[in-house]
Structures are given as C-alpha cells and as structure tokens.
C-alpha cells in the first residue's frame, strides 16, 4: 500500500519552538520564523515557547482548521523524542499525521553550537529543507500489528526471576530460559546481602521455588537461545536445550548418584564455588538448585570419554533417571515480547598483575570470599585460606578493575557496599583486623550510609588511597610470611605498607563475555562499555530501541539487588502494557514496487535480509510483501530503474531536502 498522491493545495504551517532557553538562547527563533514565512507554500509561520505543551499542540490544531493547513512543520527537539507527539496533534487537528515533518534544532543545533549566527543560519537551512520536503509527503495509514501474549525472559537471576513471576502472576505465559543448570544467578552465590544482612539464599530460594511451581512459567534451564526471528508482537524463538543426560521428569534430586560415582572425590573445579572446591562429573550446582536435578558433564565423565565405566550412578538411581543417550533438544516458541536479564560477570582480577591474583595463593576475589563465608560453601563457612591458616589480618582493596582508564572506566556501584559487608562478615567469622583501602566511599542507598557508620563502630580500619601493589617482599621482620599492601594513605600523606594474611579484591561488574553475541541476536544496541543500551537513560531505562524487547538488571549496567528487582518489575510492566493493549502501531515506512517501472532485472531480490521481496513470475516483476518489510530502504537505493519507492523516504523527498539545505548557498553564487 502506498500513500495517496498529495493534494494539489499546499498550505504549510511552520512552528519554531523556543523550548524555554534551550533553543531560544542560541538561535534567533523569530528571524527563523520570519525567514520561513517568505518560502513558497508557507501560510503560517510563528514561534512559540513550548510547542510540545498542550497550548502548543492546540495552536497547530487551531491553525489546521482556521488556516486550512495541508502540511505542518515543527522546528524543535529531536524527532526521536517528539515526532509522535506532534503527529498525534496533527491528527487531532483533522490532518493526516504523515503530512508532518520535524526539524531538529535543539539536539543537532542549539545544544551543540556556540556561534549564534552560525546556529541561526543552520536552523534556517534545516527549516527550509523540511518545508521543501514536506510538500511531497503523502497521506499514509500506520501499520497495526497484533501482540502475542506470551513472553520470553532470558536469564534466570534475580531480575529474570522477578520479571517472570510478575508476568506469570498477571496471567501471562512466560518462558524463562537460563543457560546455567540452575536459576538463581549470582545472588545464589552470596552469603548475606547488604545492608540488612539478610541471608541471600533465604530470600531467593522461595522465589526460585515459586518459579518452578508456577503454572504459567515454563522453566528451561541449561538452555540457550539459538535464533530470534520475527518482529514485535510476533517473535519466533529457537531454543537449544543442552543435554543433562538426566531425565528431568524422573530425577528427584536425591543425589545418590553423585555419592556412588566411580570418582571417589571431585577432580573438576566447581563453578558454583568459583573454583575453590572440586566436583565430580555428575553433580548438582548447589543443593537448592532449581530445578533440583543433577547433570553430567560430558567433558569429564568416564563413560563419555572411554565408554567403559562401571556406571555405578545408574545402579544407584532407583528412578532410572540417567540417560546417556539424551540428545540436545531444539524447541521453537512464539512470543510477543522479550525481556533480557542476562546479568553480569565479575572483572578478571588477573588483568591487574600487581595485585597478585593467581600469583599469591591468599589473594581472593570478593566472589570467592562470598563462598568462603557461606555456610554451604567449600569450607562450610570457616574462613580458611588456601594454605590452611585462618587469617589474623585482612586487607580489602576497593575499585579493582573499576574507575580505571587501564581497565574499566566506570564505577561498579556495588563494590563499596559489598566490601563493607565482607569486612563485617570476615571480622565476625575470624575476629581479624580488617583494613579497607578505598578511593571514595559510595553508599547511596536506603540504609547504606547507616551501614557504613556501623562498620566504623566495629573498628574496621579505613585507609583512603588507591592500592599500588600487593607484594610478598618483606622489608621488616613483621612482614615475613605475609602479603604487604602498599598504598598512599592520602589523609595523612604517607605511603603505607600494611602486612596482611589475606587480600580480598573488590572486583567490579562488567558485561557478560557473550553480551555482544546476545545483543546481535536480539538486534539491540550496546553502549560503548558493552552493557545493553536503554532507550533513554532517564525516561526509558528498561526499553531498548527495538520494539518489544526490554532489558532489566545488571545487563543494563552495574547495580545492586534492589535496583535489579525494580528494573525487572518495570520491564514486566512495559511488556504488560504492550500485551494488554493487544496491538502496536508501526511506522508505515515500508517500500513498494511501482510495477509499471519495474524492468524485472532481479537486482532487488537478494537485497532484502527479511526476504520481503519476491518475483511475480507471471508478470516478471518484483513484488514486496508489506508485512515483512521493515523499512530500511536498501532495495530502494539499489533499483536501477528507480521503480522501488519507500513511504516517508521517497527519493523526491530526500532530493528536496538536499536542495533546501544548499539553496541559500546556491542563491549566493548563481
């Protein structure tokens, strides 16, 4: 469907917005309005303080009626912000909303240029271009697409869990896909959470259990997204379910098989305990894993490696749940909206060699310490170092990998708080002297500053200075056998050497290693740091630039549990808005073939990544399926005959824009 030919009468209304001081302090808006008044076709040209406000919009509607306008141009902020607002206003005024063009003189001019004359000239050029362009606009109808009610949530950490439960409780069907064998994410690894020192597992496991038992949630763990097709409201997702070699329906999680495995003790680094302990090839990540089903790691299982294991595990299982023949399963599902909650990874401390991680055995990352102090961890909550001792002195180094030009520039937001928490827990478990080496103390949340006060009263030592290095080179007798932390104590202006038994590195949060692959698969953007990009940092923190896809939690940026849960709720609400309204309006910027002009050369057929173009053999001409077309315009530019046109971005319109932008210059010389 292409627009109806434009009506013969051109009566253009032009409005330039002051946007308070934002535009008017740099651009002489009155002279822009005066200039545009002189252009052919313009019957109304005025300026107004805030065009997007109600009175501003009413001004447009009044003029459409009284001045019989057939085109409207507004010069104000970015179309990405208010194009929809003004199109709606134009429609209310009785004119087809696509007879509207917007000029960006704020983000692209007044906010970025200081030379007022140059800015005003630029505004005039841009206004002229828009006034010329809008003449060739046609009346169009927006596409309406139905939204399927099913939702896909990718990632089963606290954010994914909360989003899934919110949607399921609202009566929507949710598919929760998690790549690890259990949900719970990083939160399941923590011991206590700040500032209340709630036990992480105690507040998390009830939610995990709710997910497992909820009739509206289909939980697929140990599964990954293989392919995403479709568009908002109608996504087709291909999910790859990796084989556990255990029948999920039959296994009850009794773990007899693990007990009876031919391996007498574990030999493989246990992922859940961050390598601090070892597991067998048949294992469960942790006892409260959800689903409570074991799995077999085929890389280390003797049966897979040699085919000649006694298979004592099979004997031990009276449910006959073990199935070495299990294959990978491919599932295809249809959903309307997607929420990405894929979380974060911790900074790799070995990238900072002078902190000694990996070289000195008693240098730990914060995540490792979470497992050490955890009662269900590798040392049952006793803080025992790798060399068997219990520490008498501990140094906690803040900002490892964060706030650093050499590694990650950003502040990871949670490390100060969790470093305070670990200081408290370590002191509680060992009564050691604890030293926190910090740059700034960032404790912005509810109860966070009070938590810091409590730590100050507990006699934890705070040294303000970025740690230069951790070394085992003793210079004095009391440093023998210890790790020495060297840092400038900036409060007293002295470089200090603090000998400790244990060093804890407060590693920062960064995007997951596969974040780029994930975001390409879902066709969303990332920021320069690599976190998923939100549509607007203030007003749309959980939306993305791709309709129907939302983000929540640490995958959007470093944050703590309360903020992750808040975002998850927000993302679920956004998804619900879409689902409950039943349909979404898409911009009608699709391409179409003017058959009379098509020569049948076939150049366009391979251009479309969505396979929207096909050849009508009977007519020997190209044909575009409007429902599949996404409006990129690539085929339009490729057609040698100029037979393919794009609504809203016709060649005619762009040529008028180019002409309008350069007209002033042209008039000067010729």
């Amino acid at each position, binding site marked *: 469907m292409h627009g109806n030919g434009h009506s013969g009468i051109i009566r253009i209304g032009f409005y330039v917005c002051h946007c308070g001081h934002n535009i008017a302090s740099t651009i002489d808006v009155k002279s822009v309005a005066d200039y545009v008044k002189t252009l052919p076709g313009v019957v109304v040209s005025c300026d107004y303080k805030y065009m997007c406000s109600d009175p501003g919009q009413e001004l447009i509607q009044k003029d459409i009626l009284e001045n019989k306008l057939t085109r409207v141009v507004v010069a104000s902020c*970015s*179309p*990405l912000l208010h194009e929809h607002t003004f199109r709606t206003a134009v429609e209310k005024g009785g004119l087809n909303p696509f007879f509207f063009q917007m000029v*960006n003189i*704020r*983000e*692209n*001019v007044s*906010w*970025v*240029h*200081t*030379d007022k004359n*140059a*800015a005003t*000239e*630029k505004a005039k*050029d*841009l206004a002229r*271009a828009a006034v010329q362009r809008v003449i060739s606009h046609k009346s169009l109808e927006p596409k309406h697409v139905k939204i399927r009610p099913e939702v896909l949530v990718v990632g089963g950490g606290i954010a994914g869990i909360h989003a899934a439960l919110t949607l399921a409780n609202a009566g929507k069907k949710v598919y929760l896909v998690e790549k690890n064998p259990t949900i719970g994410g990083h939160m399941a690894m923590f011991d206590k959470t700040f500032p209340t020192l709630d036990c992480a597992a105690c507040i998390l496991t009830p939610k995990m259990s709710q997910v497992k038992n909820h009739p509206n949630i289909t939980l697929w763990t140990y599964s990954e997204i293989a392919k995403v097709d479709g568009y908002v409201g109608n996504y087709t997702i291909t999910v790859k379910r990796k084989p556990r070699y255990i029948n999920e329906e039959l296994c009850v999680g009794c773990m007899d098989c693990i007990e009876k495995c031919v391996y007498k003790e574990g030999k493989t680094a246990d992922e859940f305990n961050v390598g601090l302990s070892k597991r067998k090839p048949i294992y469960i990540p942790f006892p409260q894993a959800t689903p409570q089903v074991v799995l077999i790691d085929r890389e280390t299982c003797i049966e897979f490696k040699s085919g000649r294991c006694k298979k004592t595990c099979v004997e031990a299982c009276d449910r006959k749940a073990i199935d070495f023949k299990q294959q990978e399963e491919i599932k295809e599902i249809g959903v309307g909206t997607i929420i990405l909650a894929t979380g974060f990874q911790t900074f790799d401390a070995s990238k900072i060699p002078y902190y000694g991680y990996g070289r000195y055995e008693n240098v730990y990352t914060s995540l490792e310490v979470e497992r050490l102090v955890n009662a269900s961890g590798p040392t049952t909550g006793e803080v025992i170092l790798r060399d068997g001792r219990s520490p008498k002195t501990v140094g906690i180094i803040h900002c490892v990998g964060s706030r650093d030009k050499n590694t990650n520039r950003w502040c990871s937001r949670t490390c100060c708080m969790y470093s305070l928490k670990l200081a408290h827990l370590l002191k509680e478990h060992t009564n050691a002297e604890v030293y926190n080496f910090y740059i700034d103390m960032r404790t912005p949340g509810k109860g966070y500053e009070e938590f810091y006060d409590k730590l100050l009263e507990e006699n934890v030592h705070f040294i303000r200075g970025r740690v230069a290095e951790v070394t085992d080179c003793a210079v004095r007798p009391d440093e023998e056998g210890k790790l020495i932390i060297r840092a400038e104590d900036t409060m007293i202006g002295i470089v200090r050497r603090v000998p400790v038994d244990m060093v804890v590195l407060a590693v920062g949060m960064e995007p997951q290693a596969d974040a780029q692959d994930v975001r*390409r698969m879902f*066709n969303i*953007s*990332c*920021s*320069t740091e690599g976190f998923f*990009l939100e549509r607007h940092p203030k007003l749309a923190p959980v939306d993305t*630039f*791709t309709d129907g896809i939302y983000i929540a939690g640490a995958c959007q940026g470093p944050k703590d549990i309360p903020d992750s849960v808040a975002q998850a709720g927000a993302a679920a609400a956004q998804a619900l808005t879409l689902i409950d309204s039943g349909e979404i309006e898409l911009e009608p*910027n699709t391409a179409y073939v003017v058959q009379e002009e098509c020569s049948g050369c076939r150049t366009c057929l391979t*251009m479309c*990544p*969505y396979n929207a173009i096909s050849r009508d053999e009977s007519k020997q001409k190209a044909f575009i399926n409007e429902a599949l077309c*996404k*409006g*990129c*315009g*690539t085929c*339009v*530019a*490729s057609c040698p005959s100029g037979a393919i046109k*794009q609504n809203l*971005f016709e*060649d005619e319109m*762009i*040529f008028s*824009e*180019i*002409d309008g*932008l*350069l007209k002033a*210059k*042209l008039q*000067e*010389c*010729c």
Partner: protein
Amino acid sequence: MTSANEQSISGNKWEPRIIAFFCNWCTYTAADLAGVSRIRYAPNARIIRVMCSGRIDPQFILDAFSRGADGVLIGGCHPGDCHYMEGNYKALRRTQLLKRMMKDMGIEEKRFRLEWISASEGERVKTVINEMTEQVRALGPLGLPEKFTEWDKELESLEHEINGKGDTVHA
C-alpha cells in the same frame, strides 16, 4: 577552487558546507546523544535523517555536490550491528564504487567520507565532524554550481562565436 572563490558574492568568508546522511538507529541517535551531553562541534554539517545507511542512493551524494556541498558524510552502524542486518554493508559497497568514480570526476577523496558511529558514540560525532570540517576547509570550496555556471557561460559565448562566423559559412 581558487582563492577568489574563498569569498562568496555576499562578501562573507567561505565556510565548508557538509551534508551528512545519518542512519536513524546509530548515527542519528549518537548525534542526539552529543546534543544531550552538550558536546560542542563545528556548525558546518547539515544532517539528513534516513532509516538506514543502505537507503543512501549514490545519486543523493552526487546531487549534494552538484548543488554546492563541499563535503558529504555518511554515518551508519558498525559492521555487524546494522539495525536491519546488512544495510550498512550495501552502503559500504556503494561508497567504494562511488569513490573511484569521484576520483575520475576530480573530486578529492577527503570530501566524501563513510563513518561507522554507534548509538552511544556521541563524542565521535564531534570528532568526525570537526575533523572533516577542517580537512574540507584545507581543500577549499568545491564550487560545482559556480563551475556549472562558468561552463554554461563558456558554452554560450562559444555558441555566439560559432553562430557569428556561421553566417558567412552557410551563405
């Protein structure tokens, strides 16, 4: 492109005029981000928004030059990140071909630039526009419309000459 052309007829000092085609999803968003972040850059570029860099027809670029643009900039998503999968690759192919043609037409390479700028690279918008403005400034005005006018005048005077002599030849 002589220094005589450095001053336009109105007497104002010549400023490079760059037409920029920015793709909606990446580069245009980055330009908005530059605005929101109040990053200042040269006012010489005029932005035309398209949905994808793949929409850009080589004719637009040639038309821009022929109407007086001193430089043309195309901004698209980084390879692999195109919102419509492959549009930016098509833009890349077309610009490669166009560059070779333009060389033959006598248009300097630095006047036509294809840049990949992602949605969060507001700083890069500033860097690219500032850099390109200075490079084009150093090259001076391209002045195609003026040349066309000159050539038209030349042809006209040639016609007169021929017609003047023609009377006696055709007699």
